[in-house]
């Protein structure tokens, strides 16, 4: 019996589609675990603002993630929870910094100043970072095996279709927002 042409075609098409849509993302990204099960929501419900830990300094530099020292300001001793015990035992007591895997970390040649966006532009943190502050456990960190950068730069969807504004931090996303606001920029505004 001869196979009808569409069937032969489909024999190639279907596995290729499956590989491309299902297997490829798994191959492209590697998942890494965060060092501590940090609970953003608990901190936020405790009345803390994002900037209490992630502040823009007077010199305009964004402090990024808080140092172990600032964590120790509240969590100097063990006892409250398993996570805090781990924090104290592994980082506070030996005086080490927590090796967080930063979802939003940009490539080395990118210069992103928070001050113009947050202080001058009055953008809410969630505008670019999404509802990170509501998370109870840190999202798994996914790293692109080819580029070595966080998956968040591309966004969760492989096609980037229908993504929310805060999903994706590619240069085109920056440019899109800047253009939409009529804000001119030069390469060296955001590259170093």
């Amino acid at each position, binding site marked *: 019996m*001869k196979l009808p*042409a569409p069937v*032969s*075609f489909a024999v190639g098409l279907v596995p290729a589609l499956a590989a491309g849509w299902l297997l490829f*993302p798994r191959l492209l990204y590697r998942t890494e675990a965060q060092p501590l099960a940090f609970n953003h929501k608990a901190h936020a419900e405790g009345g803390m603002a994002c900037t209490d830990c992630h502040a823009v300094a007077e010199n305009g530099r964004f402090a990024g993630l808080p140092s172990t020292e600032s964590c120790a300001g509240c969590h100097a001793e063990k006892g409250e929870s398993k996570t805090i015990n781990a924090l104290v035992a592994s980082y506070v007591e030996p005086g080490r910094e927590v090796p967080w895997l930063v979802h939003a970390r940009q490539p080395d040649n990118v210069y992103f100043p928070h001050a113009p966006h947050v202080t001058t532009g009055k953008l809410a943190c969630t505008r670019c970072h999404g509802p990170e502050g509501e998370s109870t456990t840190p999202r798994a960190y996914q790293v692109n095996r080819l580029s070595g950068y966080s998956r968040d730069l591309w966004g969760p969807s492989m096609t980037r279709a229908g993504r929310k504004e805060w999903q994706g931090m590619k240069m085109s996303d920056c440019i899109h927002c800047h253009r939409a606001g009529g804000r001119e920029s030069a390469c060296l505004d955001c590259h170093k």
Partner: protein
Amino acid sequence: MKLELSRRDLFLAGGGAVAGIALSPVPWKLLDDLAIWTQQPSTPTPRPAGPLAFRHTSCSLCPASCGLKARCFGAQPVGFSAVPGHPASDGGLCPLGLTAHHLAKHPFRATLPERVSGGKRERIDRAAAVATLSAALAACGKNPKRIFAVVDGRPGRSLSRTWRALATATGGLYVTPPAAGASRSLEALGKRFDGGSLALGVDFSKARRVVSFGTPVLTDAGTPGLLARLRAESRRRPAAERIEVIQVEATRSRGAALADRFVPIAPGTEAAFALGLAHVLLDEKLADAAFLAARTSGLDEFASLAARFAPALVEQKTGVPAGVVTALARDLAASLPALVLGGDPASAPLSAEAEAAIASLNLLLGAPFGPLPVRADAPREADGDAKLASATPFDALPDGSVGLLLLDATVAEGLVPWERLKRALSDGALVVSLSPFRAGLGEKATLLLPGPAPLEAMLELEGPSDAPLSTLALAPALLLPPKDLPLPEEIVREATAAAGLSLPAPSSGRAAALLASKRGRIYDPSAASFEPLAGIASVDALAELFARGACWIDDAAPEPKGRFALLREGEAPRLLEAALGAPSALPARLTTLPRESVSAAPPSLLLTKLTRETTLFTPPAAANASAARA
């Protein structure tokens, strides 16, 4: 029923696969990722080691002791800028200082004691270092041909007291190298003061003519860039206020190339040239008569010496046309205040006679107290009851006599040449260096006890001895030394004890001594302001200021009473003989990095940018080769 698979089916399936892949994210996502992948740095990706902060300290690489403003991320300095208004440097920095933070990571850095035996270099532990040193210390003093000598590149520090005590305990010598820059000329002049030795400094801002016999005044001496800056600023002023630099030198050095006038001269005939200028000044009655009458003695004797150096003879000796000699002398007399500086111990040393002639010339021009002000040394700890050896000049180190040589970390090879040191050593001598680098004298040592690298320890830094006013900084450390670094001072102390000798406890009374003097003002770099020292409440407050990078500067010293001798006792015949002698060989023309020769540390590897990637400077290898030839 049998399934027949034809080539057509394969083609179709292949086509389907291609279509499937094309319709999946694979090609497009890969294209994007590959684009990013091609931009991947195969290079270090510098990340801040903490929040940005600025910290102040002083540079210890050369005697200029410039103020440093360090840009630090966390504990890591990533760059320096100069401190405008700083009493020691007033906003200048040289390439060496700008890269001082690299030195702790220099490829020549040593962090463990090393011993050279049988031509082989090996790392040893602390105990072995102590044992080696104590055996050598114990052997000292027994044989007069195998004495102990310690060379201290920065005398007057608290640590210097330890070295002096060690020299006393072993019956050895405490040796101090010559200071860089114009110090020799100033010493020669100071010795002629009848009230005893007088310390003088150089104040370029008070001079209109600077005659330099090879001192690199524009490039490499004193505060970086100071004279160049003063000269350029004076060019915008009326002609009568302009500063001119006249370089008298055998080769067209960098300083000569930058000078307003370059007078090429036969090498070794500087004394004749200086006496020729003196001749014209006296012959034409151009010398500063008031100064001569009030402040000098022995004019007649000197005049009869100078009378022999008519410009025609000077032309014959030095190769400088008589007209140039006359014109220069007239110009100097017409543009007072003027000052004359001799050679530089590090790059172009002059004979004692040439320095003597230059001292006399300065007197004829009335340079002292104006461009050559009196200065006092920074307050030091009093010796008190401690029996401490006094300093032996490096030149006076006897040949073939040293069995144990200790080279402090501050000793620069440019001022203490290894060839000269070798002459002083007896056979089988142990040469101990405290340099943190396996380079320069540290490389020559047979026992290397590496200490903290620059910026890794607090240092007492006095400004250069030819500065118009003395300065002092207790410069705080910016970096932490390696965790297991055995401190060389401790090793020496242990070895001394093991050899059965005793040393006074280490002292750190410099701040107290300074405070007690009540002299001068202190500059706080973070506030950019001066405060009188008398206003500081306590030693702790002073120490805290120093820990923030402060720098003390002395008050101007009052003009002393007394006279300078135009010639010292019995000096005339020697001077005459030297000035009439034959010229010496032409020195090699090198342009080393500024201050490279007076720095105890090797230059940062980054300075290969200047030595290899520009033609401005002689590469170190070539400089070493030609220094060896000379």
